[in-house]
């Protein structure tokens, strides 16, 4: 799947979620996100696990959001209202959790417009050098321990930080030379194996936009079911077109990423 398709999906889903506090819209949105996560998350990469972290954050946000209201005057309406606002935040988190679990980070960086090329390249470098840096930290800590210096003591932190930074600076010098010698900054660029907008990717983006359009036009038209009043508390109503729109965001789960 093209990373742009996933980005469209997440932005549309996230925006749709911010437009409503109706649990009958929010829960299908969250469920769609879960289905997409289950179908497409990357199993080979730790970021594939981030969905769980996001889910925990979502639960925490819901709890904190509901409890915050206890600081003011309390009645059933305020508590419910605040619970639903918390739910909105939680669903947004779940949608982006799914996005992080399905999209390839290097692919996301390749979405950067051409004028952002250098900044995106720097971020890609940071991404690919990070494991090397983490390994360097372990190596330096061991090396210092082997001469009797325990870097865990904060006074000895320079014994850990300085070699890691100095080695990094030497790497930066080599890297810059190598980039320069391979034509970095010549001003003309082409792209090797550009990511294809496959039929599945186009479909994913289109259904996401359709779902958002449904929510946005309802918001503009002042649809009362989007933000149901809890004063007095009442069972919220839902309209089927918006229910369908929320469920539409689950459709990418059925698409084969490669088709």
């Amino acid at each position, binding site marked *: 799947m093209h990373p742009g398709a996933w980005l469209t999906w997440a932005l549309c889903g996230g925006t749709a979620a911010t437009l409503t506090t109706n649990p009958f819209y929010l829960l299908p949105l969250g469920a769609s996100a879960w289905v997409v996560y289950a179908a497409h998350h990357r199993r080979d990469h730790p970021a594939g696990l981030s969905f769980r972290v996001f889910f925990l954050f979502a639960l925490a946000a819901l709890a904190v959001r509901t409890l915050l209201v206890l600081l003011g005057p309390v009645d059933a309406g305020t508590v419910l209202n605040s619970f639903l606002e918390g739910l909105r935040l939680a669903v947004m988190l779940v949608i982006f959790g799914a996005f992080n679990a399905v999209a390839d980070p*290097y692919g996301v960086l390749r979405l950067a417009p051409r004028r952002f090329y250098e900044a995106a*390249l720097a971020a*890609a*470098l940071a*991404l*690919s050098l990070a*494991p*090397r840096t983490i390994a*360097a930290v372990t*190596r*330096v800590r*061991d*090396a*210092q*321990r*082997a*001469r*009797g*210096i325990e870097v865990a003591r904060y006074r000895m932190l*320079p*014994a850990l*930080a*300085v*070699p890691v930074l*100095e*080695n990094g600076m*030497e*790497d930066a010098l*080599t*890297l*810059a*030379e*190598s*980039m*320069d*010698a*391979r*034509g*970095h*900054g*010549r001003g*003309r*660029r*082409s*792209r*090797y*194996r*550009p990511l294809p907008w496959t039929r599945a990717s186009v479909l994913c983006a289109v259904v996401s936009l359709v779902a958002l359009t449904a929510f946005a036009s309802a918001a503009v038209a002042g649809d009362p079911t989007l933000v149901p009043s809890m004063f007095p508390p009442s069972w919220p109503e839902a309209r089927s077109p918006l229910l369908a729109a929320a469920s539409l965001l689950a459709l990418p789960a059925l698409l084969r990423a490669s088709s």
Partner: protein
Amino acid sequence: MSAVVLDRVTFTYPERDRPVLSDVRLELPEGVFALVCGPTGAGKSTLLRLANGLVPHFSGGTFAGRVMAAGRDTRSCKPREMADVVAFVPQDPGSSFVLDRVEDEIAYGMENLGVQPRHMRRRVEEMLDLFGLASLRDRSVRAISGGERQRVAIAAALAPGARIVVLDEPTSQLDPQGAEDVLAALQRLVHDHGMTVVAAEHRLERIAGFADVAVLVEGGTARADEPRSILGRVDLGPPVARLGAALGWSPLPVTVREARRHAAARPPVAPPAIDRPSPGDVLMRAEGASYSYGGRVAIDRVDLEVRAGEAVALMGRNGAGKTTLLRLLGGMTTPTEGRVLSDGAAPRTGRDVALCPQEPESVLFRSSVREEIEATPGAQTDRVLDEFGLTDLSALHPRDLSAGQRLLVAAAAVAATGAPVLLLDEPTRGLDPEAKERLVASMRRRASAGGAVVFATHDVELVASAATRVVMLAAGQVVAEGSPEEVLGDSAVFAPQTTRVFGPGWLTPDQVIASVR
């Protein structure tokens, strides 16, 4: 037509008073394998970087004269404008990679040049085939072996269309197999494709046989000549060339094969017994020590004794368990089975034993050599500076020193713990012969003072000259153990050049030269 021409080149680095190279005139024809050699700090790296304009455009400094590569003048072409005529491969390819996947890394240079995507695709495939990398195309450049990394770096530098390849110490960081693969690939470029290869190296025994031209960089100048007239210099050449020079062989051999022809004419003499002081008390021992992690057995029931006065070499291919064994001996990890004992108890890191890691830079964090030694708890700074021959350098910043000097500083900082057993992990990677000599000298001093040294290495010539005992590891087990002449003498892979010329029992040129006199 010449590939690279230097005409009256003088170059001074910024903030330096004296030029590193002055009035250099040099001409390298197309389609040769040129080997650049010379002592550390003489300007080999500078010379290589002149070819594509990294010097002076990247380095800054003052430049006079001119350099032409494939017809382009580096005064008017910046390095990035030379990308399609000169491929530059730095010493540590691991830190030169820009992207993550092998295939993308190879395409990166062409993307910068705006090459059409379909041309790029074809060219990447050609490069993958040329360097035998097709099976690695989707792998991360961080997750492949050293030799593979070096080949990816060469492919990535060549991909934009260059026909001149400039390499800074292409094999110094590699194990023997990786080095072999890289040199074979470079030779193919010269023989089959008519490209020009310019490579700087310290360790000449592997690469000497490949060179068509040697360039000696020394004393601020450089000259190109036939390899044997330059490699015959005693302090510079591979062991066979030193032998040939001492024994008056002509023409001077630069490979084992050439040397054997000369040696065949000599009547065989029995090798003299090598006189080694008998080892003293046991300082530490491993008893049935095993170490496994993640279901993989890295060390498998190893028994080993280290005695006072010994210099023990650990050898074996990459992944055989050398580093893990050193970590066990150093008390950095505890064996999952069996035990490691020093004085009847588990070794105390920094007290009974100290370990100098594979990247000596990992320990350097102070701003002068003296401070660096003082940072080690309990250091007797002056004694250690003297033992490692660092007294003259004590005021300098460790990071301003050469790779060899840095290693000595790191080893000294580690040895300053006063621990009787010193462990060194691949101490000679990237060292020039002079730094190697100094390291061997301090190892000997340490051993004769009642300590012991254990070092892991691929460098057979170092083992031949410095080790009192060799332990050969394979798949975590000890497969051979004994004196260097026993273990290396009948090895197909690990025999030093002198052994290959004269047979088992002969280890170093010095031994041969002494027996002739």
